[in-house]
């Protein structure tokens, strides 16, 4: 067997990376939540970026060969009230929470490999859960975020703009579903590994 395949180096690297990203994700959740809840509690307003769409005809000077779309994506600065900070938190939190949950599962799988035994029922369950997070969690988080975004957009004072709901939500779901398929395949490989390992155990 190729000695490189036995090296724990890549696994340590991946375990370290997932841990680092998890720390960043959790840190973001804590900071974001603390800031926005403090803003709500103390009645601060804050500048909130709201994603909306603008009629492309409102723009002038399109180059000749450029195909002019119906609408263009814009980011509007909303000088929000305290309640808008809550809406912004509701918009931003679902995706980051989902990201943190996925990283937690991946980190657990990577660390079980460092512990010497990745082919366990626990890892099969973790990978399947990750698959379901991608399959259902991503679209759901996208929808929840979009609902809060739309609520923020209604408070936007710029005339002529519409909600940002568009095909990008569908694009995210498709890529997430493809990733989910990959993860489910990986979970089945692990399940097969558990069965193979089980067969070998007790073999003299």
């Amino acid at each position, binding site marked *: 067997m190729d000695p490189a395949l036995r090296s724990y180096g890549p696994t340590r690297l991946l375990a370290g990376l997932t841990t680092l990203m998890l720390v960043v994700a959790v840190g973001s959740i804590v900071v974001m939540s603390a800031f926005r809840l403090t803003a709500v509690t103390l009645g601060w307003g804050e500048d909130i970026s709201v994603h909306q769409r603008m009629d492309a005809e409102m723009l002038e000077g399109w180059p000749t060969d450029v195909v002019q779309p119906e609408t263009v994506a814009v980011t509007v600065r909303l000088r929000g009230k305290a309640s808008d900070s809550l809406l912004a938190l509701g918009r931003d939190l679902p995706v980051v929470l989902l990201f943190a949950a996925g990283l937690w599962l991946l980190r657990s799988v990577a660390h079980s490999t460092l512990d010497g035994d990745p082919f366990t029922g626990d890892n099969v369950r973790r990978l399947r859960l990750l698959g379901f997070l991608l399959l259902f969690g991503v679209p759901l988080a996208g929808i929840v975020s979009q609902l809060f975004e739309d609520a923020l957009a209604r408070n936007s004072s710029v005339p002529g703009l519409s909600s940002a709901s568009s095909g990008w939500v569908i694009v995210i779901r498709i890529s997430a579903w493809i990733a989910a398929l990959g993860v489910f395949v990986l979970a089945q490989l692990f399940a097969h590994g558990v069965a193979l390992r089980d*067969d070998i*155990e*007790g*073999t*003299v």
Partner: protein
Amino acid sequence: MAVPSEQGITVHLDEILERRGMTLIELAERVDVTVVNLSVLKNGRARAVRFSTLAALCEALGCQPGDILSYVD
């Protein structure tokens, strides 16, 4: 006395070792199998035996597979 495994296979290693005047540790060294694994085999807790292990045992003990293993329905 040899205890049959849950599959009904009885391993007669104890009896053969006693006849040969050999210890389990000596046998383990000769067949290159750990004492732990030989103990698992001897006590009927093994789930499978490799042909290579069986052949090594037969060579070390000077016997046939049927001398080491028997089946009780």
